[in-house]
């Protein structure tokens, strides 16, 4: 074992892992974080705490992670390279580990253009792959990125990264994953999967390079609340691939039945993905719909979560 991470224990134990996410509030209320996280208690192995998601200012992912940790749950600290340089990020990694956080996700982050501070500088001192390298160097060599030795306790982070099998150029997507794994990613959380054929094709490439044996791949899942949400994701979110059939299927049922249909699609997707060699678990992103995660996990036969 590289770390004390609960997620690592679940994955290395051969269980299908389940993670979900909790976006911190746009205010300073600790209770909001706790309330949101409570929906996920006992239901998932780790809770992603997003870092200024979609470039909108929110409570810091570090503070959110600590609040979730205080509830006895396992936070998964997300960190984007957009907002801080390598000094600030390493400082936060030390601080996070000191506060009991041992799992993180390394991202570049959405461009500031999409957020509420479009006028802010995009830092990008390093990119997501270099962030993975940095966290690994801290953990395995006990060294800061600048080369100096870490004094005393070394932060032993279980390192995650993201992958989007649906972005272009498609032929590069497996290779980019290979770079993330070579940099030190222990697990991957993918973009929401709606186009299963394309995902399977990507996984074929992943297996061909043997990448599924070097790292755990959690398939990204998002239940659609309504046909509006489906259309929004299809048309407005860059790098999201929602096939027209799914939009049609959602619009084919009455408005009040759409949430149930969305959950049904999500469960069908999970059943199919369980059959895909190399899928090591699920990352359920129920955006503003955290209360449904428990139902999804239970109906998918992934409950109770293993005690490791």
């Amino acid at each position: 074992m590289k770390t004390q991470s609960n997620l690592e224990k679940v994955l290395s134990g051969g269980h299908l892992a389940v993670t979900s996410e909790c976006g911190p509030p746009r205010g300073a209320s600790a209770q909001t974080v706790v309330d949101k996280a409570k929906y996920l208690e006992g239901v998932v192995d780790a809770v992603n705490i997003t870092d200024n998601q979609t470039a909108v200012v929110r409570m810091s992912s570090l503070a959110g992670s600590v609040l979730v940790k205080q509830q006895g749950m396992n936070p998964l600290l997300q960190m984007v390279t957009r907002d801080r340089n390598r000094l600030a990020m390493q400082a936060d990694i030390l601080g996070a580990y000191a506060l009991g956080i041992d799992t993180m996700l390394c991202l570049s982050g959405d461009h500031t253009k999409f957020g509420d501070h479009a006028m802010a500088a995009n830092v990008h001192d390093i990119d997501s792959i270099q962030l993975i390298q940095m966290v690994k160097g801290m953990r395995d060599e006990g060294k800061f990125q600048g080369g100096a030795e870490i004094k005393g306790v070394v932060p032993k982070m279980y390192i995650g990264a993201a992958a989007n099998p649906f972005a272009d150029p498609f032929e590069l997507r497996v290779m980019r994953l290979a770079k993330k794994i070579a940099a030190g990613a222990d697990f991957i959380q993918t973009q929401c999967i709606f186009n299963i054929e394309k995902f399977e094709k990507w996984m074929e490439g992943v297996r061909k390079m043997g990448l599924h044996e070097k790292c755990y791949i959690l398939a990204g899942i998002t239940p659609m609340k309504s046909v509006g949400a489906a259309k929004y994701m299809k048309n407005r979110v860059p790098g999201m691939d929602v096939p027209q059939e799914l939009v049609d299927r959602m619009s084919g049922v009455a408005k009040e039945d759409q949430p149930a249909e969305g959950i049904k699609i999500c469960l069908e997707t999970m059943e199919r993905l369980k059959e895909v060699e190399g899928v090591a678990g699920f990352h359920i992103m129920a955006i503003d719909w955290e209360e449904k995660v428990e139902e999804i996990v239970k109906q998918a036969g992934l409950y109770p979560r293993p005690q490791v």
Partner: protein
Amino acid sequence: MITAERKPLDEILSYIKPFKRILLLGCNECVTVCAAGGRKEVGVLASGIQMSMLKNGASIEIREHTLERQCDPEYVEELVPIIDSADAVLSMACGCGVQQLATRFKDKPVFPAVNTKFMGGSDRHGVWTERCQGCGDCLLGVTGGICPIAKCAKQLMNGPCGGSVSGVCEIGDEVECAWHLIWERLKALGLTDQYLEIMPAKDWRAGGGSGPRKIVREDLAE
């Protein structure tokens, strides 16, 4: 070249308001090529300023002049005989030129009439795009001749990110995904293996991270 765009007229007028005699100074280099601050633009701006003044029943004396190069002391020296005929200088050169003037003529107010934009090139007539950020440690040799620092919105050195769709950057229709371009070039050059090498974190000292940069050529410097 260094590209620039004229500032809004109101801003320019606010700078020169207290003065009666203005030296409006163009530059024959980059800003001429990008049609922002050459001889012709000096003429158009002088005319615009004059009309704004006349409209308010005021007047101003504008002397138009364009230097071969505003960022070199040799050329700026040309201004010595005429500088005192102006109360202030309005420069249409890039920021380098403006500062050259401010350094040379210490007691003369100097104002910029353009916003210096970026180092770029011309895509077609009338369109300029950013190509270089002067990072001081050129990567183009390993990225197929396309710069991820200047052309990727997140300056990813190991891109493309998950927002690249059909060759277009997530920030908008007009922006090409730099890494898509890099990948196409590497394919065309038969260098796709190069992609798998992780580009290490950049040393930004060369890019200005350690303060203002300077080049001293021992063989040339006097």
